[in-house]
């Protein structure tokens, strides 16, 4: 019988009319994100960092710039370097996470945020001051010790440097 297809189509749209919309009203509500989400605003623990600059060497884009001087305050490993400059240009970062994989002391973690939009490219460079003051909610990406303790950056507590080691 002709026209049945049209009638079925009309019924589909009519039932859709009374269904709950899928739309998520973003600024007010957010979709849940994975614990391993590789976000911006890298989480960096100065107490764990020796200033070895492994992250800068492993970065495929060379967007991490580290300047140090001897005589740092690394608690873990004794003698180390103090960090003067730790610039990450996230305007060019592709969030591959190789810097986090390269870190031998678990001092650098991927962040969990995604709302660091800026109007100028220069503002996209994360400086060492910003890293020091940032909210320490690390992503669990490439950090099995965080996954072992079931940590989730969304809704979880900020972690101190002693809690994130292996």
């Amino acid at each position, binding site marked *: 019988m*002709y026209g049945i297809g*049209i009638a079925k189509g009309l019924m589909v749209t009519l039932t859709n009319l009374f269904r709950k919309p*899928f739309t998520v009203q973003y600024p007010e509500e957010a979709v849940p994100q994975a614990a391993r989400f590789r976000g911006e605003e890298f989480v960096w623990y100065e107490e764990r960092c020796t200033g070895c600059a492994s992250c800068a060497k492993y970065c495929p884009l060379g967007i991490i710039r580290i300047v140090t001087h001897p005589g740092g305050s690394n608690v873990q490993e004794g003698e180390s370097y103090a960090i003067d400059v730790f610039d990450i240009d996230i305007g060019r970062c592709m969030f591959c996470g190789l810097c986090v994989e390269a870190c031998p002391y678990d001092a650098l973690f991927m962040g969990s945020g995604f709302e660091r939009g800026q109007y100028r490219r220069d503002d996209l460079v994360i400086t060492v001051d910003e890293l020091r003051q940032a909210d320490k909610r690390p992503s669990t990406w490439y950090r099995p010790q965080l996954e072992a303790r079931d940590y989730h950056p969304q809704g979880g507590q900020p972690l101190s440097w002693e809690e994130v080691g292996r």
Partner: protein
Amino acid sequence: MGGSTPFREANSFFGNLYDLFAESQIFGVSLIPQWLAYFVAGFLVIFVVINAVVITTTLGTWVERRLIGRIQSRLGPNRWGPFGLLTPVADALKLLTKEDTRPDGVDPWVFNLAPLVFILGPLLVFAVIPFGKNTYVANLNIGILFIIAVTTVPTIAMFMAGWGSGNRYSLFGAMRGVAQLVSYEVPLVLSIVGVLLLAGSLSLVDIVESQSIPFILIQPLGFFIFMLAISAEMNRSPFDIVEADSELVAGFHTEYSGMKWGTFQLAEFIAPFGAAAIITTLFLKGWEGPALPSHLWFFIKVWGVWFVLLWVRATLPRLRVDQIMGLAWKFLFPLGLINIFVTAGLLLVWPEPTIAQLWAMGGVNWVVALVCLVVSSHLMSDKLTTRAPLAPAPGTSRSRAQEAG
């Protein structure tokens, strides 16, 4: 008083206003002269009707976007004002403050006049629609003929816009629009004839008053054809090949911006309300209904028909040009003729039908409608959906091979 005035109707909206102005006196002296009263009353009536139509349409754009959003599992506009109710206001402000660009190579007169001519048709439809008991701007004795005439005016504007823009997409859209209108005007008029035979009048007021049973029950085939033809006439989906945004950018109004574009859009949103008002008047007993006031009945019916038009628009995909032409000439045109002959034959049998005879007519017409729809769908479905193979272009290898073999 006023008996000599043209279009003066006893107890009508306009007539009452006219009487109010013309007959108001202070100490036996008329407040305003009769000729001025005629203009004032006429202007007031036109002002009220046009504003009511435009405001309803503005609300309609919001309702339409919200409902289509919900049909597509979205929310629709909900940012400006409560539930997004101020979205049309924001749209209008944005369009009014937008730069009015005019590309090189346009024909200025034709280009600038087109939006005004385009909005004329949908607005003029409301001049003869009875909105309620004794509420109409003019009770023309050729009302429905007037509507048929003015609904073709936008096509001229469409071609003016397409031609004046100096853009191939615009011209393609306009040419499609003209071809579509010429085709669909035929089934549109044929579907109305059944109603006119039953009502015995061309005046919309008389048509409403002659409906002891809603004509949709007596004229199902006519209603079906009229719905399809009027959708095509308004270039609404699934017949929107004129605009066809995936093929022609925006068709005839590709080159327009600012409030000129806004006028086109406004006219396209007024058109479904006009169509719903015509369908309500012709097939759904107009403003008549039990208990509730007549204006409210009209309002409810118009929004109901409007929702069906929207629902169809949100559901069906766009047809191809040849499918649309085939539908008009091979499917709707013969059905319209059959409808006229059956209705006329029944009226020969029962020249002055009583209620029972009207119901009997309805029964016959429903059977005829179903049989005709099934049979003609069966006969036409292959011819509507498959395209004849194109002739190979001259000089290509395929055509040479054909010539050789």
